[in-house]
């Protein structure tokens, strides 16, 4: 069994649910009162996909304009980028496109892109159609998933597909910058995924300040 270490950057406007998606995936929970990210947060996650032990290092960025100049720090060495928008907010979809342009301009190696339309539970307020978003994702050669951090829809699938793409990339592109090495075997579950632990920082923490309400939406 081989091991692979990959860096992922999560980009998108403030309030689209980047942190919620990451915490849902890494920490298995959803909080209505997730605090707006300051600067960027760093998560690690380990899992087993196919024949690979995958260690993900995730940069969850803040998405605020004033942190924009810091962004290259996070995406420069990334192997994959999750481009998250809010399906109820057209502006946040347009924001994704400017991120894609920036990545294309500034990232030298291959970077796997995955467009994520979040907040599908709010489908009645949808502003961006699935077709339109899929079409766009195709045009930039990106994966596309719709998710809800609230109902835990689509998130596992998105991360699984990103991981599979990373594995494929490591096999086909030796200059991808992905760290691959031989490691010990591990069992697989039905989904082909085994989560064998959360990284250095435990994300099951008790929240100190439960009424930490904030920025409900990027369109507010």
């Amino acid at each position, binding site marked *: 069994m081989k091991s692979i270490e990959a860096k992922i950057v999560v980009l998108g406007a403030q309030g689209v649910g980047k942190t919620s998606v990451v*915490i849902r995936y890494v920490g298995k929970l959803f909080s209505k009162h997730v605090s707006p*990210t*300051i600067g960027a*947060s760093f998560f690690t996650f380990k899992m087993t996909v196919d024949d690979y032990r995958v260690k993900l290092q995730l940069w969850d960025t803040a998405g*605020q304009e*004033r942190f924009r100049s810091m962004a290259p720090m996070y995406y420069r060495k990334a192997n994959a980028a999750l481009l998250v928008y809010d399906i109820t907010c057209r502006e946040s979809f347009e924001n994704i496109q400017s991120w894609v342009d920036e990545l294309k301009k500034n990232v030298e190696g291959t970077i796997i892109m995955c467009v994520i339309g979040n907040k599908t539970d709010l489908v009645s307020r949808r502003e961006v159609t699935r077709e339109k978003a899929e079409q766009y994702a195709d045009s930039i050669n990106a994966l596309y998933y719709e998710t809800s951090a609230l109902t835990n829809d689509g998130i596992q699938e998105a991360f699984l597909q990103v991981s599979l793409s990373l594995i494929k990339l490591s096999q086909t592109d030796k200059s991808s910058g992905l760290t691959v090495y031989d490691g010990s075997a591990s069992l697989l579950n039905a989904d082909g995924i085994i989560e064998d632990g959360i990284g250095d920082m435990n994300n099951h923490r*008790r929240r100190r300040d439960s009424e930490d309400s904030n920025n409900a939406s990027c369109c507010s």
Partner: protein
Amino acid sequence: MAALTEPTLPVQPLPPNDLEEVTPDDLVEEGAPGASEDHMLIAAESYEDINVAIDEQYHRGKDEKDKTKNEIEQSARELSIDDRSTTPSDEGRETPKEEVSSAEGKDRSNSMLGNRDRPQHVEEECYSPEWRQRQKHVFILSEAGKPIYTRHGNEDKLVTTMGVMQALVSFVQDNDDNIRFMIAGSHKFVFLNRPPVILVCVSHSVCFFCFHRFMIAGSHKFVFLNRPPVILVCVSHSAESTQQLLLHLTYVYNQIISVLTFSQLSKIFEKKSNYDLRRLLTGTEKFLDNLINLMDRDAMFLLSAVRCLPLASSVRDIIGQSIAQCKAKDLVFAILVGRDNQLVTVVRMKEHSLHPADLHLVFNLVDASTSFQSAESWTPICLPKFNSNGYLHAHLSYLDEECSACLLLLSADRDVFFELSEARQKIVTRLNKYNCLQAIRESLAKGSYKVAQIGIPDLRHFMYKSKSTAQYTSSELEAPYTEEGERHRLFGMYQYLHHRVHNSARPLKILFHVGSKETMLGWITSGFELYATFGPLVTKPAAINAINKLLRWIKKEEDRLFILNSYTY
């Protein structure tokens, strides 16, 4: 325990009837409790940023000045028994020029200014939490009149207000006269221009622009702080003095600098004077809100000092050493802060000290957001006193599951996250090995200390600042100050006391204030500031006796309550 009957005095006892003889210098030579030569923090004075503008105010009007001086000297000599029968003009004298410029005569001016600072006022207010919030309103606008921030409501709805504010400010700026007044409707505006500060008082209690929702009988005080390219405005119905409100505005301003840096802020407005700054400040509102709320209840801002988490000095030493041993590139400061803004330690580059005001902003950052509880974070932060034109890069993380202490590693290099992350891991390992995190958790669980522990009957609460280290200690708030409203009232009393001992051409050294609900004593020497609350019936000699005992106790406990030795990289 023979030592208890025959205590060695760390300080000279106060001669009960002649306080003038206790010169502050005597006390310092004996060593004020908690004094140290350590340079971890910069020994900051209250109002150091706004002293110039304010002090001048007291020297205006020759007669007034002399009168003021005489009264103050006398009150110092008499231990300044400030009972509740003091006449309103007592306060009016402190802002003589404003009084003079108020054309409508003395009564009006007293109601406008005098009552603002009176303890009676503090004691008599009704304190519903909601109403209290409304007591103080803070706005920020750009010099072009664009709204940037409002504490209550929504900036967009306040565009007109902001525009009027801005017009008022330029009206004041354009005038050479230091003092102007203008009447708009039923309001009288009195302006005092002390660049870069403009003070404005509004003398009538009628609805003003959109503020009617929190308007209650009595007058509002408007305080403007003009820090190009932004203007900060505070409209207050609280008892705080103008300096205290200016201090608040200065902190609010510094919070913005902390997010943007001064150079970035000025550049933006140089390029485009009507820029909408809210775009760049998204997400900062909660830090401004939190800061303003904190200032309404935490004495650290007023005292220009920080409170340390009580810890055995041996434990604190291990913590300091452990942090100091884990070096990383360009690491300037490592700050460990416990819950409720209690400092555990600061490790710093030898040549740099931290200003308490910068540390307060760091505390606010940690206090206002739970974002750091879920992961390691990496964010630029500007410490205005350290360098208002540049960022440091902060690695933030809590060190245990309970989130009892947050570690900030501040580096000048933006690319060292992983290095710092490694250093942090080593620190955690060491602190766990020596049970330091456990000690921190225990101290947090235990809280501060009960005043009963000190064994002074009648002493209800106190705050003590060691000036040389810019650190303070205070006992827990106990009955009768357990209710939110009473706590706030007591805080207001401390603000008043602080105002009185700091706020005059020749500061009072000691103030003995007899109120209906408590008696308070404020004392400033060159080594410390002490504010103590007693029951209402305590006599002056008893209070002085108690204070001596208290100082001895603090001296005995100083290793635990203060950081007297810090570590450097």
